[in-house]
């Protein structure tokens, strides 16, 4: 009798655990094909970034003048595809300063992923705080915060980022800061919306009735429930941030040479698009794949998490 009861208890516990929000969500994510594809590419990119020194045959900043018998902007040479064995192998060719493009593209993954995660991380933290405070406190505080956010949103984001970088000075760090600042309003709005609806729910009133303080209610009760839409927004935002950073670098405002950044690589060789197309094609392709990965993952996550899209 008691063993049966025990088993029943364990089963219920198992059911409870496997039916928790996390596991339900994970299961519905796995059912989304685009999320799977995006996620796989992303894992691949992360591995490439981690093992860049192992994969890349050259130091990305190493100038090969005098070290190898090779001309600048040489086309790709792959031994397997018939390139003579006595020529040094450069899978994606060499650039205008005689550096191995393949190594630079590989190391560029590190820079781009770092840009994506750090800017969005910063924007989410600041945006969440602002949105949560605004939504929870309400009144003039809410009005003030959200009007400032409206002003930020009123500018085309790239233009605003260019303005910020111009004031702060060129360089990757300032570009990151600029991109982070312009993407704050997006997260602030998402969080505020969620907080507004959640704070009216009964479990919040219950928590308050039990004597929970404002901070406790906001950070322990409301925010954890407001996170799912933020994850979707954040994933999509990383793609957008990488794109914006590449655009800034292309314009010469972001990463400075000799940093192997895809946008910088594109920008410095843009005039060679007809004479040495490989120099703009591969960095461009790398940007496309990375942004596509985040967009696919973001779309998949939204389909899986957003309750409005559930049947």
């Amino acid at each position, binding site marked *: 009798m008691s063993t049966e009861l025990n088993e029943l208890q364990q089963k219920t516990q198992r059911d409870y655990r496997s039916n928790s929000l996390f596991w339900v969500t994970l299961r519905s994510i796995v059912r989304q094909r685009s999320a799977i594809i995006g996620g796989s590419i992303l894992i691949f990119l992360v591995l490439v970034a981690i093992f860049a020194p192992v994969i890349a045959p050259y130091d990305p900043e190493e100038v090969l*003048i005098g070290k190898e018998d090779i001309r*600048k902007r040489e086309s790709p040479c792959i031994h397997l595809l018939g390139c003579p064995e006595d020529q040094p192998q450069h899978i994606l060719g060499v650039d205008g*300063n005689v550096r191995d493009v393949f190594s630079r593209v590989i190391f560029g993954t590190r820079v781009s992923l770092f840009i994506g995660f750090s800017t969005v991380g910063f924007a989410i933290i600041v945006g969440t705080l602002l949105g949560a405070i605004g939504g929870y406190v309400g009144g003039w505080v809410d009005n003030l915060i959200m009007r400032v956010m409206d002003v930020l949103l009123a500018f085309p984001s790239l233009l605003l980022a260019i303005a910020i970088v111009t004031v702060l000075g*060129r360089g990757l760090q300032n570009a990151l800061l600029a991109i982070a600042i312009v993407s704050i309003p997006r997260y602030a709005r998402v969080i505020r919306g969620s907080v507004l609806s959640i704070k009216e729910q009964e479990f919040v009133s219950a928590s308050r009735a039990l004597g929970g303080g404002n901070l406790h209610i906001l950070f322990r009760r409301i925010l954890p429930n407001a996170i799912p839409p933020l994850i979707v927004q954040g994933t999509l935002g990383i793609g957008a941030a990488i794109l914006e950073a590449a655009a800034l670098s292309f314009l*010469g405002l972001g990463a*400075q040479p000799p940093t192997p950044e895809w946008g910088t690589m594109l920008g*410095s060789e843009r005039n060679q698009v007809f004479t040495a197309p490989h120099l703009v094609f591969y960095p461009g392709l790398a940007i496309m794949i990375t942004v596509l990965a985040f967009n696919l993952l973001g779309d998949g996550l939204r389909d899986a998490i957003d309750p409005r899209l559930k049947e």
Partner: protein
Amino acid sequence: MKKKTIYLLLAVLLIGSLALGACQQAPAEEPTEEAAEEEVYQPVSVEADSCDYGGKVLSVEALDDYTVEFNLCKPDPAFLAKMAFNVFAIQPSEYIAETGGGGKILEQPIGTGAYQLEAWNRGDSIVYKRFDDYWGESAEAETLVFRWSTESAARLLELQSGTVDYVTNITEEDIEAVEDDPELEVVPLPAPNIMYVAMTNTFEPFDNLDVRKAIAMGLDRERIVENFYPAGSEVASHFTPCSIPGGCEGESWYDFDLEAAQQLLADAGYEDGFETAIYYRDVYRDYLPRPGDVAVEIQTQLKENLNIDAEVVVMESGEFIDESTGGRLDGIYLLGWTGDYPHPTNFLDFHFSEQNPQFGDVFPSIYEPLEEASQIEDPADALGLYAEANNAIKENAPMVPIVHSTAAYAAKASLEGVNNPPFGSPIMRLIDPGKDTLVFMQNAEPISLYCADETDGESLAACQQVLEGLYRYNTEGRAEPALAKECTANDDLTVWTCDLQEGVKFHDGSDFDAYDVVASFGAGIDASNPYHEGNTGAWEYYSYLWDGLMNTEE
């Protein structure tokens, strides 16, 4: 009542406007009187009150119909070289007066050149016809056409397809394609330019001579030129290119010597290198066709050779020029210079004079011989002084001269007499296309054809075919007499007397004389001249080459 008020108001307005009109009528009549005078506009002289205005020209006077005298405030040994600049071309005094120095003259210049303007089809082409009464040898081709395209690839395509005969700047990558094509030939543009790596000696650690010398010896300039400049570019042995008479006197620049450089840096206390910045602007220039690539290359060399960590900093062009020439950049900067006229003063005096702060504190050992040399007419007599100055430049290393770069034009191989002088533009009258029409394609459309008030090479190239000055550049870039038989100076080079050619006809049939010279110069250099109108009104070359315009207000 109301109607009355309205009528009253109308009447007041009417009377008021009549009164206003009457007041303005008096000055309005004047131009007609002037117009009567204008038909015989023959200015005898233009002059400044005194030399106090700071410029070089005191007066330009017509002594008789075919003699002009230039009185200068300061001696100018480069006088003839400057005179050959097409900005100082001569147009009929009557025509200048008729157009008022603006308007029609911007589009329809009347000169004495081997070609006269037929039509300027805006946005498409300029057509010239051979001038049959030309005083010299007449032009080879009957018709000359100027076209333009900003893309070098497009220019080359037109050349390959045979629609044009001669094109300007082709890119380094395209040179090979042209060389491989038996129908085409590369026409190199000789290099009166210099690209240098400058250090401002008022900032640490560049205040230390050993550091500057270490960088001078520690940069492999040959590697830079070989990898980043078109074939035919030369590693600079001196600041001034050797193609300029008297340009490369004195010792050649340091050879690349890594050990000596590292030793010098260690002696200066920087054996572990230091941190600095490399400043440049991302603007195409003949002397720096790929600024970004060269900056990164120098960054790499400084790191590898001398362990100096340099950050590459791109600056906005205007700001970069302001800051660098003002001596306010705390690092290394990449700048250059393209010659305006073939004389060492144009290179050395501009950069190393006592007044120029771009390298920080000035060096008396450099500027003193230069000042002395600038008083001597014939560069041949000043060679010793230029050698002294160049040796002092090498000894003090305020900058490192890197390269005299070359650019390349391309033409059909069948053209005869193709030329590309280092100063001025290709001389079209000498080119025989083997057919009636010669078609030239340049980078852009001219802004106007009144080049006294233009600075861009495209306008000057188009003007040069129609207009001539007292002197002109030959195919080697040396100044030779054109409308003047000869200009001679007094002993201290302050009075130049020009003996003019007789019997020269303008394209409108009128005769060339000394008053046309005075009128043309007056319109440019005299700010109070009634015909000082021009296109922009800036008259930049008049102001720059003669140290300012005379009779300016204030």
